[in-house]
């Protein structure tokens, strides 16, 4: 079968190649899934670069989200059958290929409301948005939160969740022309980092002095500018490494009780009980099923088109998630 693999860490455009590898066989307690869609997350690209918190043994198949159809099940599997549409839960590794074998616990039925492309990018981003907003920051109705990279897929997930939960998103974008689209999507306000003064814009939008709660995917100059504008008891959570640059903060930190910390979905899975994880999945799953949450696709690329996929994934101004589709199946 085809798989997008890497034999060394490095720039994705250079080290990722499409290879033929043996198709896996399901054990008695496993499900063989024919994947039709896989998401491209920043964490997938960092893993390829070797800068992520987990470094796989090489060579490795990239990717860790996907959706498709059950092809075959092992003798002991009773809750899935061939033909079922399924979504691979985050935590699986090596989804940028045609087939994966997984335990049933690593799969969820795909709700009819979602296409395979949407299902493939539903969990990492929406789960992160849900945990950050409702568990980590405990956002209340009408409470404003600053979300950087507001036009990213996670930024859009946060806007959809805000519509449902009642908190208010103030989004940052790199360029002012992205402003209207996010206002239309329900943002309380939009701050363009290329032209606006973050502290002043926050005050004008929220009427509050100082930023109390921040969800940052960028770090670097944008994150540092926000740190300068924090309120005395602020919580700043970094969950992404988009700028690949360190955060900087001056001595003003000592005149506050602000907390600056990170969030990693992998750790959340490690630290929460299976019951809690299942409950969160249940709550989010309902919001997918009833159409409240609706993953947004930017573009799709065939499994063979690695260079197109990588180029688009690193390009600014994406409108949603980049999805790897295919390969085309012969008509049966």
């Amino acid at each position, binding site marked *: 079968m085809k798989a997008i693999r890497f034999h060394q860490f490095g720039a994705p455009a250079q080290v990722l190649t499409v290879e033929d590898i043996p198709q896996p066989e399901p054990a008695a307690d496993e499900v063989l899934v024919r994947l039709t869609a896989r998401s491209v997350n920043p964490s997938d690209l960092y893993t390829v670069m070797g800068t992520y918190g987990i470094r796989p043994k090489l060579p490795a198949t990239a990717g860790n989200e996907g959706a498709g159809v059950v092809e075959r099940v092992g003798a002991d599997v009773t809750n899935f059958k061939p033909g079922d549409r399924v979504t691979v839960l985050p935590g699986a590794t090596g989804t940028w290929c045609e087939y994966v074998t997984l335990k049933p616990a690593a799969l969820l039925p795909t709700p009819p409301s979602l296409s395979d492309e949407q299902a493939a990018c539903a969990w990492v981003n929406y789960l992160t948005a849900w945990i950050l907003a409702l568990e980590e920051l405990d956002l209340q109705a009408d409470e404003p939160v600053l979300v950087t990279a507001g036009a990213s897929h996670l930024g859009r997930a946060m806007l959809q969740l805000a519509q449902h939960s009642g908190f208010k998103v103030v989004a940052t974008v790199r360029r002012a022309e992205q402003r209207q689209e996010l206002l239309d999507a329900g943002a309380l306000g939009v701050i363009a980092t290329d032209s606006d003064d973050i502290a002043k814009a926050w005050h004008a939008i929220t009427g509050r002095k100082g930023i109390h709660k921040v969800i940052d995917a960028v770090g670097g100059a944008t994150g540092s500018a926000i740190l300068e504008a924090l309120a005395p008891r602020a919580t700043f959570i970094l969950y992404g490494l988009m700028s690949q640059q360190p*955060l900087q903060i001056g001595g003003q930190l000592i005149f506050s*009780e602000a907390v600056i910390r990170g*969030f990693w979905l992998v750790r959340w899975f490690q630290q929460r009980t299976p019951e809690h994880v299942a409950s969160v999945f249940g709550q989010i799953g309902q919001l997918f099923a009833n159409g409240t949450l609706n993953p947004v696709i930017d573009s799709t690329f065939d499994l063979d088109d690695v260079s197109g996929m990588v180029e688009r994934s690193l390009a600014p101004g994406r409108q949603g998630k980049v999805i790897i589709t295919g390969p085309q199946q012969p008509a049966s």
Partner: protein
Amino acid sequence: MSDATPAGATMQALELRDYADTPESLRLVERPLPKPAAGYVLVRMAYAAINPSDLLFLRGEYGIKKKLPVIAGFEGSGTVVAAGPGWRGRLLVGRRVACLAGDATDGTWAEYAVIPAERCFPLSDQLTLEQGAHLLVNPLTAWGLLHTARSQGHAAAIQTAAASQLGRMLVRLSERFSYPLINIVRRQAQVELLRAQGAAYVLNSSTPSFASDLRELAQELRATVAFDAVAGAMTGQLLTAMPNHSRVIVYGALDAAPIQLDAQRLVFEDKTLSGFWLAEWATSLRLPELLRIGSTVQHLAQFELATSVQAHIPLSAGYQGVQQYRASMTAGKVVWAMHGAE
């Protein structure tokens, strides 16, 4: 107001004219005696400490900037001689107090000061006014930091600028509670000073093996919290050396360079950076807890939280007095003594 002060009386005070931090910036002036408004008391000051926060304030680099001209000084001790309307103030009249200046009003470097009633802490009989002059900023911060570390379940702690007054209080407090503390200093003489005081773990950040020594010791003792008075590059070094899930609490910024935070440390290693501002921390406590801590700190001020004083100086020393402190901060506090006291 209960009137214990004659009409037309004046007082001496050190007035800050600008934030340029020059001898002309801080002037001895003669002012009319102020009257306390509602919620305030008039304190006849006895002593007032010079703290690192005052040095930042004189340069305009403190978290609060006041409208100029203003009387400088955040901390001191004295006797409440009058009160504006309000029960809290009235109860304080006649009491000896340690006090902290208001955020927008005149400070403590004066013969009399108008102070918010809730920032006056009556002194127990065991404490002299001299001890009360530096009861709040350093001892309360030291207590607050160690209390935070212990109550959050950290097995051991690290501190930078360990030879400072506050650092040495932390050394003594950690011994009292048998709490492992890794002390970081910059010079060999300070290593010996702290060892002589009984500190078990002292590292010199100027030695070539510092980074690896710190890492080894922090991992071995599971030191997952650090009290950092240095900031700048030191904060990043701490975060790098400490085990996963660690927290660095920055309460001072001796190094003016910005702190650099590696995103990977926060996201993948679950490391946290936070500030510690005494005024914010204290206001987060409920009154009973604050009173309990106040009483403990007053008790310890005679022992583990004692402050060494290098000199009492008159207000007329002015900027010279500030310079004297700046030149020898680890030698002990320089304290203003009012009304001709020694």
